[in-house]
């Protein structure tokens, strides 16, 4: 098990190194010089050159890459070209919105998907199953921003239970902050829950056809006992894979929902930074997201091994 973890850890480090190279050079290739962009089209060439020197843009690519990576390793993400504030601070502020939102949405999605998927699998082909499958079909089909607007209409405008947008801030207390994240989290969670429920159901149905489920029944377990004791854990591998993918998506892909609810999250930060050619911010946020995605995959890999003993002995 330890060797498995070490091996996955090594692969994590290699992935990060490769990702940092790719991100840096792809963004360097992108057209548009940040210095001339910041100073506008009428700027004197001398001023632009001075600003380039100040921003460190006149250094060689390799120097800048090493400086960037070295800085990140020590927690210094550099200065934003446009806002002139440390990138680390900007990201940290946004992270406090995006990360709780992603976790909140994923928790909701899992809480909805597990019971729905298990319920449908246990009643395969019966009305209950068809109802759940119909609902998930709808959940997959409806775009989350449309859903977000409907939620705002009902719960913010008509019922006035929640605010229509904005983030209260953690300094206003945990309850207030969570309350302002609730509608966005639901809007994000429902389509994900629909996908997860379908995966859960089909994974369980595959397992229900396995020989060892019949063995369990031959021992005297009821259908329900066999499903819970032998089916669920075996069905977890595909489900964990999807959960991992969904978390990565929720962290970075919430940009539309952040726009709908005026949330100061990472998605909006990247969007603004790209528009302003604030390359250092873009690079850092993207790198951070890559780090998050790879780390989540690492955790999912470890979870696989916890679920399935066959993976522990394999290298």
């Amino acid at each position: 098990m330890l060797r498995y973890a070490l091996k996955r850890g090594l692969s994590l480090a290699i992935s990060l190194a490769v990702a940092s190279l790719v991100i840096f050079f792809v963004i360097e290739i992108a057209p548009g010089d940040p210095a001339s962009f910041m100073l506008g089209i009428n700027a004197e060439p001398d001023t632009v050159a001075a600003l380039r020197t100040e921003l460190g843009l006149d250094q060689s690519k390799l120097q800048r890459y090493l400086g960037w990576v070295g800085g990140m390793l020590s927690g210094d993400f550099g200065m934003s070209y446009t806002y002139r504030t440390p990138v680390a601070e900007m990201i940290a502020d946004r992270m406090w919105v995006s990360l709780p939102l992603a976790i909140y949405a994923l928790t909701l999605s899992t809480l909805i998907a597990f019971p729905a998927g298990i319920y449908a699998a246990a009643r395969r082909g019966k009305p209950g199953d068809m109802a759940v499958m119909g609902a998930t079909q709808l959940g997959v089909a409806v775009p989350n921003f449309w859903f977000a607007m409907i939620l705002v209409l009902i719960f913010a405008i008509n019922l006035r239970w929640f605010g229509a947008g904005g983030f209260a801030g953690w300094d206003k207390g945990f309850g207030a902050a969570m309350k302002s994240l609730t509608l966005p989290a639901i809007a994000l969670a429902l389509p994900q829950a629909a996908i997860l429920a379908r995966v859960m159901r089909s994974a369980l149905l595959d397992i229900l056809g396995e020989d060892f489920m019949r063995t369990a029944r031959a021992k005297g377990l009821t259908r329900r006992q066999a499903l819970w004791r032998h089916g669920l854990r075996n069905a977890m591998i595909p489900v964990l894979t999807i959960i991992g993918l969904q978390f990565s998506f929720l962290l970075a892909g919430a940009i539309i929902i952040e726009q709908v609810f005026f949330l100061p999250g990472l998605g909006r930060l990247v969007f603004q930074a790209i528009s302003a050619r604030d390359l250092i911010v873009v690079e850092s946020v993207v790198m951070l997201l890559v780090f998050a995605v790879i780390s989540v995959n690492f955790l999912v890999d470890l979870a696989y091994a916890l679920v399935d003993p066959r993976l522990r002995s394999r290298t």
Partner: protein
Amino acid sequence: MTLLNISNLSLRIGTFKILKDVSFSVAPGEIVAVTGESGSGKSMTAFSVMGLLPDTAEASGALYLEDQNLLDFSEAQMCGMRGKNIGMVFQEPMTALNPVKTIGDQVMETILIHKAMSPEQARDRARALLDRVGLPEDRFPLGRFPHELSGGQRQRVVIAMAIALRPKLLIADEPTTALDVTTQAQILDLLRDLVREFDMGLMIITHDLAVVADLADRIVVMRHGELVETGTTQELLHNMQHPYTKMLFAASNHQVTLPQAPAPQPLLEVSGAIRDYPLPRDGLFAKPKHFRAVKEVSFTLYRGERLGLVGESGCGKSTLTRAILGLEPLQGGDIRLDGMPITTEQNPEIRRRMQVVFQDPFGSFNPRHRVDRLITEPFHTLTDPPKGMARSDLITETLRAVGLKSDDAQKYIHQFSGGQRQRIAIARALITRPELILFDEAVSALDVSVRAQILDLLAELCEAYGLSYLFISHDLSVVRTITDRCLVMQKGEIVEAAPTEEIFAAPQHPYTRALIAAAPQLPDLNQGAA
């Protein structure tokens, strides 16, 4: 006194009748073998007793276990019976255990689910059971996972689970079909001993008549959901009445006469063949290790010769077969077909001259192609494949040669039975008139009566086309009749090679002797009562 009394059991799913008025009984301490070919309803009879039928199945008649009719039981009551009063052992030990739970937990579960004893007692009982079925604690602690065990060892765990609460009736559905002969012999011995020890009734479902004759006190022969004939083993073996029973036993021991092989002239030469598989490294930077599956194997197959290759699973026979086919590279030695070296590089010439027939007659065909396209696939190895009339004539001729009709060329593979599919596979191998055909367990998945027909077909084709083949099989009785010479393989080496009759009459190597001794034999039925 009877333990299980099945009377007029009928079963249907929708309008399809699976079982028709089946009646027989099992006494305590008695071994009753239910036998028949696929589709005979033997497994469904077992599942009826367990109450594990598909939801849509409707059963009628009566199933008395002692004085209770199981057909009257509710699902909840049946849950109380299963595992406690009736235990069951399944065909596929590799998949019958939950891969994510330890063997100890799985054996204990049978005990705990029926609340028969406390968890501590259950643990002790599970330990004792595993010891009893031949899995001692030093090598098989309760914390072992199923994937760490071989097929035979897993079947022992399944048996331990089934007998954990000393059920009155044990049902075993093809318990040794997936196992090697030596393992099969051990598992059958274990079952026999347990029946005597616990005075259980054992209902064993098997298609293997040699196992039946060897093990059972009483035999039930089924066909198409009906009971054909039943009687005590001695009585039935020596005085069988029904023509189907007679046919079944005759087919199980089917003998063919092969034409004389021509003078030896080498066709396939394997010399010093080595095949290694890489193993995972011990540490991140440790030297990679190898598993040597084939260890310097050398043999020659002569033109017109029918050569057998036998051995148990894991002995390297499949690996060797793939190397001969040029599907996997060798790490040493070489293989030549008529002097031409065989490598993994695509060589149409070698492909044309050497064809193969695999075990699974369904899985080895593309279900979306018609038979004419399927059997002409080897044509891409020809520089000038026949077209138009020549092509359709060749298709017709080949289909007729394997006993099919010319209009079968326009059908799809799912429209054929297992035996017919294997005929099509042989047609595909035959169509380019290869000099050598490899039969890789080609008759292992077939029912005995179909197997007998395919063996006859091979003998006919030997006569008509002067076939040379390498017949790879774990089934000794088949190899005995269909080959001139035989190689015995063990742990990657050929331990014995001799004319087939000599091997069976006077095996020299201890492994060959063990293999032949372990294979269950049908008694010679022509000698009257023995």
